[in-house]
């Protein structure tokens, strides 16, 4: 392969490039450097997060009050009725929808599709994973750098298809495209088909990234780095990549069959032709359940790193965490039916319920190991650690609230209520997004060579934490009391909790805006970051901040484990600043 680095000599960071704005743009557009691709993905996923967040704010805005029919007297003294509470009604004409409910349906579908397909699935692997997987392994790049660039462009094209569908008004099927609605709605075919195609194309990006990562971990480790010398971040990304490779093709064929069902009416999901709409759900969830583990495993991988470095303590139970990552990936393929309990036959439901309980075990192992790592550690209070602690709290709630959903009897009542919404937001947002924030702050100095303002970042973290819990904890109660999900309207008794939830969403917005401000200020005027601000022991902390084009000046040789804080002075640290204990406990 050829890189365009002939112009500059070693020692310059990967950010530096040829002079001239056009040359720089071309360099970034044609780069095969995993770091640049990671940064491009980072900007894109954060932008998608913002768009998905705006649609979430719109959803919560509509839910501030239920739709009420009010009788009033008009000027002529006649009794007239009008409808209040349809806060999204002004959008009816813009979206050429039929009524405010349809506007609401399109907006929550937008929120789901954007957040799931365009933000959270690529989020950590494509941005932080792309950037740090090769560096942590001691490699110059991923296994297939050109494929990496192709992945990026496929992602961009997929997002464009999605945006095109949105600009044409969007779809109202929900991000899950359940049949028979998704195959019969919208006589004007293109919106639904475009959105489905967007998801299909994004799947290819996911597959290629996954393939790249699996081969990289197998083949590009530095000399001296065996499987059990790798940082746990790698184990998490590896398990994620395995799921991406195996599960994503199934959603590919599912979406393809869905398109043909719409266009040609092939009949496999249509009961009047003998088909089964629930078969679509089996096909869909065979991918979409493993994909939620694609979402959380990289987050867990980050937490392993952040907790260990910021408590300056060897991770507790390295092998347990490593194997539990693989265990979660494996068991994730066995449990997809728990999304379909209320539509399945009994025998299958019982089988899936039992299997679903299994997946809690490796997850819990990880949580206990992280807590044990914190115990008697030298805990630094900074933004990454704060976010890691937030993660432990919110993800545990998310995980535990999955158990009533896995239990058949209680799931009958909780299925398709706000309880489910709260559960998956606690795991996806309270899990992945919090871990993503932790990782971003942990690795920001390395990626961009600038420190960020710790105080404003911690303030942002606290506000995000408060806003998140206000928004979603109330939704557990809404769900157990019977508020269904995806409904724009509801009975009066739910209003108080909905109002609290909406106010929480505004707090969340404030928190993330503070973070955005902190990051921009850091890029513009942040102090220069040292090579190893936190005292980490993994290979990325041996490079400069930001790293040079080929990551390392010489191929690194691994001489210590990634978490040997008791026996090793971190790279670039003065031993005076890092006193080692005299009697290190053995691990």
């Amino acid at each position, binding site marked *: 392969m050829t890189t365009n680095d002939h112009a500059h000599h070693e020692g310059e960071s990967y950010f530096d490039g040829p002079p001239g704005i056009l040359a720089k743009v071309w360099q970034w557009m044609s780069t095969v450097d995993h770091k640049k691709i990671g940064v491009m993905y980072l900007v894109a996923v954060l932008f998608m997060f913002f768009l998905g967040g705006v649609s979430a704010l719109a959803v919560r805005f509509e839910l501030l009050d239920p739709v009420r029919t009010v009788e009033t007297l008009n000027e002529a003294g006649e009794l007239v009725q009008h409808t209040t509470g349809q806060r999204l009604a002004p959008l009816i004409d813009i979206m050429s929808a039929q009524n405010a409910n349809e506007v609401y349906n399109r907006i929550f579908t937008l929120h789901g599709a954007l957040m799931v397909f365009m933000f959270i699935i690529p989020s950590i692997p494509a941005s932080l994973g792309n950037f740090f997987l090769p560096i942590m392994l001691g490699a110059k790049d991923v296994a297939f750098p050109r494929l990496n660039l192709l992945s990026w462009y496929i992602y961009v094209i997929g997002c464009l298809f999605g945006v095109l569908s949105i600009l044409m008004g969007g779809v109202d099927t929900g991000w899950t495209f359940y049949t028979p609605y998704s195959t019969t709605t919208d006589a004007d075919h293109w919106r639904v088909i475009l959105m489905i195609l967007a998801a299909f194309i994004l799947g290819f990006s996911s597959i290629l990234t996954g393939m790249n990562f699996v081969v990289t971990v197998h083949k590009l480790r530095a000399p001296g780095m065996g499987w059990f010398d790798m940082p746990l971040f790698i184990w998490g990304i590896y398990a994620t990549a395995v799921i991406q490779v195996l599960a994503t093709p*199934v959603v590919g064929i599912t979406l393809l069959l869905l398109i043909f069902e719409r266009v040609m009416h092939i009949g496999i999901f249509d009961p*009047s032709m*003998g088909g089964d709409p629930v078969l679509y759900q089996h*096909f869909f969830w065979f991918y979409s359940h493993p994909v939620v583990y694609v979402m959380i495993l990289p987050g867990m991988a980050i937490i392993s790193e952040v907790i260990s470095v910021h408590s300056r303590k060897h991770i507790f139970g390295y092998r347990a965490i490593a194997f539990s990552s693989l265990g979660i990936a494996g068991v994730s393929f066995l449990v997809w039916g728990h999304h379909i309990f209320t539509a399945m*036959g009994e025998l299958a439901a019982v089988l899936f319920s039992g299997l679903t309980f299994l997946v809690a075990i490796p997850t819990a192992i990880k949580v206990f190991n992280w807590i044990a790592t914190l115990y008697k550690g030298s805990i630094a209070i900074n933004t990454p650690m704060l976010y890691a602690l937030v993660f432990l709290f919110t993800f545990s709630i998310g995980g535990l609230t999955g158990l009533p959903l896995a239990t058949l009897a209680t799931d009958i009542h909780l299925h398709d209520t706000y309880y489910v919404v709260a559960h998956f937001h606690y795991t996806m947002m309270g899990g992945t997004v919090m871990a993503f924030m932790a990782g971003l702050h942990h690795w920001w100095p390395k990626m961009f060579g600038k420190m960020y303002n710790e105080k404003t970042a911690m303030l942002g973290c606290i506000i995000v934490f408060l806003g998140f819990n206000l928004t979603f904890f109330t939704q557990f109660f809404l769900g157990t009391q019977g508020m269904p999900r995806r409904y724009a*309207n509801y009975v009066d008794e739910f209003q108080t909790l909905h109002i609290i939830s909406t106010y929480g969403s505004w707090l969340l917005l404030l928190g993330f805006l503070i973070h955005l401000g902190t990051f921009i200020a850091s890029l513009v005027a942040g102090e220069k970051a040292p090579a190893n601000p936190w005292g980490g022991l993994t290979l990325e902390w041996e490079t400069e901040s930001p790293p040079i084009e080929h990551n390392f000046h010489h191929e690194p040789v691994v001489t210590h484990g990634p978490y040997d804080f008791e026996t090793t002075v971190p790279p670039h640290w003065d031993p005076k600043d890092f006193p080692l204990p005299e009697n290190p406990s053995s691990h």
Partner: protein
Amino acid sequence: MTNHDTTNHEPHAHGHPVVSWQIQLGVLLVLLFFTFTTVLFYNAENWIETAFQIHLPWWVNVIGAMSIATVKAILVCMFFMGLKYDKALNTFAMLFCLFCVALFLGFSMIDLDTRDRVDTWKKGEIVLGGTGKGLNTPSIDPAFDSTLSPTINTKGLSIVEFNRQQKIEQKGSEKAYWKYHYKKHPDHRHPADTNNYFATLGYDHQINLPDANKAVPRTGLTPGLFHATDPTTDPTTDPTAQADQDANASTKAKSDDTGKDHES
């Protein structure tokens, strides 16, 4: 930048294995033979059925054809694709993938095959294809409350009805009870409100607007997933015709204010 082999011990001591042309041709002939076999098997099945008038069970065809196909696939994988001479990792990747395929097909088929199955110990409460109760039938059914708590004697009433009577006594009168109820659930008349306090108390003036709260009920069974007979309380409806009609029908707004029981 590309690397070129800089040291002069490239190619190194062991080159890549090359499958001999004899093995490749041999494998082709074996594959062609198995193709011939599977077609022969199919024709033999047909001949046996017509000549001896016996109906072979379905699994004979499936297991016969799939075994031969599997053998052919293994030969292609091992010799044409070179897995026999290759690193074990590649074989493991393909085997794990096939395991996932087996999971996918297996569990999906378990669900689709047993969709209508009702376990024997639930037969009293659940009826195949649904109990046939529509929205108009009252949901208070003593059969559902047949096992009473040992500490409460409900004198033959269902536990739901018993609790309602207790509350009526507590409130003083039936009207006071329904006033208390409709304050919280004003949208529709409760099925147990037989004296129509809904109207008396003035809650029935609302216009029913179609909104997201009211799901359109669909009745009927998907053919193939459920057996034909469906015991319903309304003998005039034919469930299978209903299924064919409803399946692709567009949403029809049905205003139905003797709606579901909202007590929860």
